[in-house]
């Protein structure tokens, strides 16, 4: 009975957070709930939890990985948020904290929902709970960002619903009374309704792709990531996108079972390369560090799609990349948040010499940049290398070459901005008052995520590697 507990811990915490009136005490709910959740997740991973609710809620291998990832990321962010909110005493966090916790609950549900409709509802809940987080700053700009996010993701989620309908409709031929469980869908996906499966995949890809931020549905990302607090950016870029990718993977599995491996892989590779290209174009000369991170996220989503499209060992790489991306993006966004707080700006016109003014955040930002662009010895290198390896092994030389080229372009684009931020001599401070300095609560999460990313680059723990292999075999279904 651990799975419901997993979902209820954050929900209860959200209720408690709503009930607490003190603006300073409330944030502490976060680390508490996050650690409990993390402990529960570990328990679930060690002691396999039985499926409940007629198999609607159960953990499959990719789900396990995503769950572990979300929980870890949330734990890191929860620590950070306590420190962060100390600098934001002027603003009530009565909406923010419950929303964060609801997001965690929704995310947990996504990872363990084995039913098409349930998964859709869970994703919808995460989407809606993030909207108030983006709106936290209550500036006209943040309203604009929220509006764009909400409209685009609502349309996306609607398309995903339509796609889900198509998927169900496609399975009607073999199974007049479908249960909508993924395992059943996989079993009943036949070749005779390939067209409907294809249409379903297109809609689901566009729908969940919007959530994930694949180009050209990524347009909300720079705005939302740019205006949200850094920690929210971390959860969006690391958490929400991973959930959407998980959803696409599950759907992809159904389509593969329906004999559409080639089709979906073409689509995913195409979308992946397009996303990487779009990111490469827009990240070039980007002055706003958070928008830059947003485009980097678009690029990463492209990589995930590409890896999933190539399949086989590349899928292993893609899922590993999902983990690496989440942790690295987390560390980048948190560091960017600190830099933003300290300089009162996130534009490279004002931000220079972060390594001098904020030695920790500046260094982590730099290392995060190197990590996310695939430099060894950080985690993303391992996953990118695996994907490339798989691409070349499958004799997809052109795709592998384009992949490398786009990685390089993104590196160049991001590098310009990042170096301007971290190097040089800081301009004299303008603001006064509560000046931000790296503290324990806002610094430790950075160090922690940095160490995790570094560890994944030189040593993949056996249990993780085992889970990844399981996930890879899980996705290898026969039509």
């Amino acid at each position: 009975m651990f799975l419901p507990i997993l979902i209820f811990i954050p929900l209860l915490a959200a209720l408690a957070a709503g009930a607490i009136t003190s603006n300073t005490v409330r944030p502490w709910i976060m680390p508490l709930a996050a650690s409990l959740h993390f402990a529960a997740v570990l328990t679930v991973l060690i002691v396999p939890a039985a499926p409940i609710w007629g198999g609607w809620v159960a953990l499959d291998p990719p789900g396990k990985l995503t769950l572990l990832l979300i929980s870890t990321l949330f734990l890191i962010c929860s620590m950070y948020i306590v420190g962060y909110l100390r600098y934001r005493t002027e603003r009530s966090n009565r909406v923010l904290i419950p929303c964060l916790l609801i997001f965690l609950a929704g995310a947990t549900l996504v990872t363990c929902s084995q039913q098409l409709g349930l998964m859709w509802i869970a994703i919808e809940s995460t989407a809606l709970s993030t909207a108030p987080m983006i709106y936290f700053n209550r500036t006209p700009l943040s309203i604009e960002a929220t509006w764009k996010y909400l409209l685009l993701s609502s349309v996306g989620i609607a398309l995903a619903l339509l796609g889900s309908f198509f998927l169900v409709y496609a399975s009607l031929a073999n199974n007049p009374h479908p249960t909508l469980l993924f395992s059943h869908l996989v079993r009943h996906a036949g070749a005779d309704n390939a067209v409907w499966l294809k249409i379903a995949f297109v809609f689901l890809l566009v729908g969940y792709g919007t959530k994930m931020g694949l180009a050209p549905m990524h347009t909300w990302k720079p705005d939302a990531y740019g205006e949200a607090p850094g920690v929210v950016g971390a959860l969006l870029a690391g958490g929400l996108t991973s959930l959407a990718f998980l959803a696409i993977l599950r759907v992809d599995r159904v389509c593969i079972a329906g004999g559409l491996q080639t089709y979906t892989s073409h689509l995913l590779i195409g979308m992946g390369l397009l996303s990487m290209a779009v990111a490469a174009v827009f990240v070039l000369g980007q002055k706003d560090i958070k928008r830059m991170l947003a485009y980097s996220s678009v690029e990463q989503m492209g990589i995930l799609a590409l890896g999933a499209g190539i399949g086989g060992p590349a899928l292993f790489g893609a899922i590993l990349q999902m983990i690496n991306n989440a942790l690295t993006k987390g560390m980048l966004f948190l560091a960017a948040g600190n830099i933003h707080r300290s300089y009162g700006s996130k534009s490279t016109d004002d931000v220079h010499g972060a390594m001098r003014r904020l030695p920790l955040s500046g260094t982590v930002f730099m290392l995060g940049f190197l990590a996310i662009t695939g430099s060894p010895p950080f985690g993303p290198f391992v996953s990118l290398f695996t994907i490339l390896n798989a691409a070349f092994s499958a004799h997809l030389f052109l795709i592998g070459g384009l992949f490398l080229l786009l990685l390089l372009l993104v590196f160049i684009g991001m590098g310009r901005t990042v170096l301007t931020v971290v190097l040089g001599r800081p301009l004299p401070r303008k603001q006064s008052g509560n000046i931000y300095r790296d503290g324990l609560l806002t610094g430790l999460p950075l160090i922690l995520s940095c160490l995790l990313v570094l560890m994944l680059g030189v040593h993949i723990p056996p249990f993780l590697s085992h889970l990844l292999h399981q996930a890879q075999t899980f996705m290898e279904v026969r039509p």
Partner: protein
Amino acid sequence: MHWSINTPLVIVLLLNLFMLGVSRMRSLIYSAAAQGVILSALPLLLEKRIDVMIIFVAAVTAAIKGLLIPQMLHKALRDAQIKREVEPLIGFLPTMLLGAMGTALSITFAAYLPMIQTRIAALIIPASFSTVLTGFLLLTTRYKAITQVIGYLILENGIYIFGMLLLAAVPFLVELGILLDLFVGIFVVSIILNHINEAFSSLDTRQLTALKE
């Protein structure tokens, strides 16, 4: 049997075209409400055995799509004190033409698709596609935030129409999903609309382009 389904669907299609061409905001809201009410009746027409659950769902759908949401939109319209005209990105006639083309395309496209359960009216799939397309057209070619909300509503209607095909096969989760989506989506959207109105004194999405490269 077919005529009983096809007639409302044809009306829905005509309403789609009307909505694309109409210039007054109020008429647009009324048409959307009307479409919602017509659609809410579809399950009753489709199902052979009509039980309490179906009636309940139909009633809730009608209440939300026909009453609640139009009411909210009216209120937003009043609050915003905006001009009553729909402001299009491209003119009404071109959008109507696009809509008509979209409908034609949907019918052609649907003709190519294999029908999995033949017993249900052939018009459902094209109507669904066409309505989704209409919703998208409204979303992309109209500048007012409220119009976009209506566009989204139409889009959902299109999905709802397709949901009819699955009504027999799957439990009501599908419909509940739609309702949840509509309800929560529109609810949150109208909260945001309110904030936009407060912050910008306008619901024109062209005002909302401060975030750029």
